């Protein structure tokens, strides 16, 4: 029961070509929609029925997001795809861009049709040069075949898509910073409200969705929302792409139904490397709080199960760590990341991420003080929820998770000036 949605043509030869995509039924849904002039409300209802939740990490219901746009409002509207994929541990959207670009293009066209947008942008992470070229080539193919441009397939509906290459800032994966970046401004999140549905790209109504979310649309429209929903479990419809990495034998991207046990996913990924003991798992990208390995082995991969365990499914980036890992060292590396990637506009994040990193680094390097753990606890509370975007929370949550589950390792570091794992 794997690879049903975004990866369903994974076994084709050169699946990124238009010819191949169409041989497997690609663009047929779009043709039907354009031919039958399917009412946009029906499409939005279908997406709502699918239970699809934003695959970028926040998990906001996609259909609901689309319904916020006033479709009949006059003037330009935009559909934007977030292919910035910057959350450490995540590498699923890259595979969609590399292998199934037409799936995404078809999804974006349907989304544009549903909200009345005539222009769209795919914001691609700066380091994704090969995926960017693949996507550009696919756009050209689609344009030549009449799927993009004016009067698509004689339907009277116009849509043009462009890709926009980022420049390496994590914060540009935040949707409003991404919009600023497309506009040519410094990538900094906007204060919300207003949300992009009302004030988006160039101040116009905009939907912005993750690559995987948009690439799921053609399949949902082909097989129906309820088919998709039933792939998964209650409150977590469909299947999901997981990027699994760490101390395992077979890291990679696996598309499996929501609610699949973590143990099954780990098995698909070849199990623990060298047969070592699983120590900890970060289940949803580096900003998700860590979960101890034993506990993780009992959990299923869906929004509610992971949330109940005090973490989040996020972007589906699963980082598996064995017992050779020092949690202080792991946290130091993650805190350094957020310190470097804070955009700098909000005080708590700009100043706090640097302070967090310095304190964790001090502990790692044998200069920790007994009061440092209380200081870290306090700081995370003062950063989380006090900033314009969620980057501050993303920096605070890993610290909170580590101190919740592995506090004794930190205490050991402070007391003995060395690591208890011997690493």
């Amino acid at each position: 029961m794997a690879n049903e949605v975004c990866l369903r043509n994974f076994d084709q030869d050169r699946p990124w070509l238009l010819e191949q995509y169409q041989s497997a039924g690609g663009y047929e849904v779009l043709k039907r929609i354009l031919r039958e002039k399917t009412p946009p409300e029906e499409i939005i209802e279908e997406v709502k029925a699918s239970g699809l939740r934003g695959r970028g990490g926040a998990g906001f219901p996609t259909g609901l997001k689309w319904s916020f746009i006033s479709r009949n409002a006059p003037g330009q509207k935009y559909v934007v795809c977030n292919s910035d994929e910057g959350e450490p541990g995540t590498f699923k959207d890259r595979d969609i861009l590399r292998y199934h670009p037409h799936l995404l293009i078809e999804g974006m066209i349907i989304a544009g049709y549903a909200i009345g947008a005539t222009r769209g942008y795919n914001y691609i992470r700066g380091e994704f040069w090969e995926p960017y070229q693949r996507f550009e080539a696919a756009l050209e193919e689609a344009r030549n075949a009449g799927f993009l441009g004016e009067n698509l397939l004689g339907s009277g509906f116009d849509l043009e898509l462009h890709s926009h290459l980022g420049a390496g800032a994590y914060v540009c994966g935040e949707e409003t910073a991404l919009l600023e970046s497309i506009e040519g401004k410094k990538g900094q999140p906007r204060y919300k409200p207003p949300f992009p549905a009302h004030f988006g790209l160039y101040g116009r109504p905009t939907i912005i969705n993750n690559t995987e979310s948009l690439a799921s649309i053609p399949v949902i429209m082909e097989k129906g929302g309820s088919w998709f929903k039933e792939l998964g479990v209650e409150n977590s419809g469909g299947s999901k792409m997981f990027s699994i990495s760490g101390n395992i034998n077979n890291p990679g991207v696996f598309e499996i139904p929501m609610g699949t046990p973590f143990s099954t996913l780990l098995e698909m990924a070849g199990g623990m490397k060298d047969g070592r003991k699983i120590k900890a798992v970060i289940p949803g990208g580096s900003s998700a709080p860590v979960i101890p390995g034993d506990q993780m082995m009992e959990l299923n991969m869906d929004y509610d199960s992971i949330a109940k365990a005090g973490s989040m499914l996020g972007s589906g980036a699963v980082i598996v760590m064995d017992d050779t890992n020092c949690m202080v060292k792991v946290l130091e590396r993650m805190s350094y990341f957020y310190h470097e990637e804070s955009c700098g506009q909000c005080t708590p994040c700009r100043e706090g991420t640097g302070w967090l990193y310095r304190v964790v680094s001090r502990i790692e390097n044998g200069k920790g003080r007994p009061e440092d753990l209380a200081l870290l606890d306090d700081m995370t509370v003062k950063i989380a929820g006090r900033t314009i975007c969620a980057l501050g929370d993303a920096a605070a949550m890993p610290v909170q998770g580590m101190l919740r589950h592995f506090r004794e390792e930190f205490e050991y570091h402070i007391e003995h000036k060395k690591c208890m794992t011997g690493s």
Partner: protein
Amino acid sequence: MSDDQMVTIEVDGRQIEAKAGTLLIEVTDAAGINIPRFCYHKKLSISANCRMCLVEVAKVPKPLPACATPVNNGMQVSTRSPLALAAQKGTMEFLLINHPLDCPICDQGGECELQDVAVGYGSDVSRFVEGKRVVPDRDIGPLIATDFTRCIHCTRCVRFGAEIAGIRELGAIGRGEHMEIGTYIGKSVDSELSGNIIDICPVGSLLSKPNLYQARAWELVQREAIAPHDSVGSNLYLHIRGNRVMRVHPRDNESINECWISDRDRFSYIGLYSEDRLTTPLIKKNGVWKEADWEEALEFTANGLKSARSTSGDRLGALVSPTATLEELYLAQKLMRGLDSDNIDFRLRQTDFRGKEGVPWLGQSIADLEKLEAALLVGSNVRKEQPIFGHHLRKAVMAGGWVGFVNPLALELNYPVDQLVVSPAGMIDELAAVAKVLGLKGKPMDKAKVTDAHEQVAERLKSAERSTVLLGNMAVAHPDYSLIRSLASRIAKASGAVFGFLPEAANSLGARLVGAIPGKGEDARAMLEAPRQGYLLLGVEPDMDFANPSLTRQALDEADFVVAMSLYRSPSLENTADVILPVAGFAETSGTYVNAEGIWQSFGGAVKPVGEARPAWKVLRVLGNLLDVPGFDYVSSDQILEEARAASDVKPDNGTDTPSDWQVRSASIGLVRIGDVPPYAADPLVRRSTALQQTKDAGAAAIHLNTRAAEQAGLTGGGQVTVKQGTGSATLPVVIDEAVPDGCVRVPTAMPGTGDLGGSFGEVTLEKA
């Protein structure tokens, strides 16, 4: 919910009425409830990034920034609940971890927003034990000192540039902790409003460079004043220590300057303490200048004027500065008229006195400017000449309005405009073409060639509900001012626009209201073309403040007696005057200015005049006594003001007549000079502000011409060329400048080295040096 619906909210248990949708911080500010803030500024966009104004709103789990939260009915807000205070104190701690503890040597100390708020929300001991961030300072020009290690990244200065100055000179470069405020690769901050970032910076990152390390905030005494340069009449605070003006700040006046002032108004005070400030009266005896006491100098002056006058008052003339106070101008004309002379004029840069005009003024309120839908400006560099008017016009354009210019120079503006850039003679043709589109007939219209551009200007003015046609400094100084005035006035009438002026100086309007212009006597130009035997000069320098410095010097040279009342002993006064009386300047005397809108604004003297200098009204009063002119027994300037107000029998009035013969005086063959007055050369005070003179806007005397003109003359940029005009000449560097129209050469006036030249818009020839 309509926009003006009133709602009731509760803040800290207090019921407050407010308009729905108003930002919470505006509501609490109006109600006197203090919420700490750094990034919020009432005139700037909301950035919500400092996170200092976080408050608790009932039913919202996270604290919300008051600056970005609109109020709605029944909203319950706690500004000092445990959640709110924890958030505010948390932000404060983060703000302070990297802020240096250098308050004892920081100029902002004592008036620092961060310091003030830290007292209420900071902790006495820092938990931050790491090294603090250090950021290199940047040289962003002669006016503003930087100390970016102190920066708290509120971005007010960045938003000021983008939104108010209209020029993005400062930006936040880098990310996260490495974010720094800076200019784009080594550039300076050159906006004419740049000094305002000193005021809005909440910490000591942006400071006044001229005033750096000169005074502590608590040593200063604050006095009110009115800006003495342009006709805006910006409201000021003078900050004084002992008997010295240490700095100048804006004083809020929403209907005039809001909370901003121009750099000229902020930094010109430096000129008060110029090295050539005259501190004692000077008398020239046998060609040698010697210091004198007041009694001797005044006797000398009275006798000199008496003998120059001899039997006829017409032998005397007074040339007075439009930056003089109303009281000084009133007394100067009263003195002249008491000596039976009607020869007094402040219109020193004007050369065309044909036709009749009223009392030129803005024609509308200053606040109206920003509501304009269309404005045509003729002969004006409003952005630099009256920067606050420029700011109001920019707001009009930002709100969708249109501004067009007819000028002899292309301007660099901070908003989109349409510019018709032509020679001085061409300006008449351009206006005639616009007039023709509007259906006007007569001599200049008959031969006017209409293009799309003219039709567009006419259409813009006609279709707008609120439109105006305004004449600026270069229109008034134009050789065909009377023709331009008539055309502009008729264009305004035909298009339903308001006709008005952007008067040049602080008292251009006031001078007329108190009669500092001739009735039947000679105007400024005639007084110099037919030299008088005696001259009274008030606040002017012969080589800088006149339309034709060469003519001025000749006339003063020929006179039997010249008395100059001046702040400075400038070489051009020493060459031409017989006595120089040191008078009080800006901040040193009480007085009144009448701004472009016709608002009378009085001010007191804030400091004692330097040395032996005396307020000019007192000097004129004693001269009146010594010359036996009745009615010179004032004991205060208030009495003069009262009398002047009662005697004033004219009102602001933009009426003008149409000349019967349409004789164009502007040169139409050969090379024509464009002699604009750079903004920091406008009057003796600003010319001596050493800080302003180092700015880009101060410029340098040079010969500007475009590529085509340079090719024709066989010139290249950088070399020295001699420009000849009449009997005078100046050798100056050549600058290739596409802002200058064909057939013209820009040689600014009032610049060092140009004092021998003739009329500002006369014909010139160029010779390789």
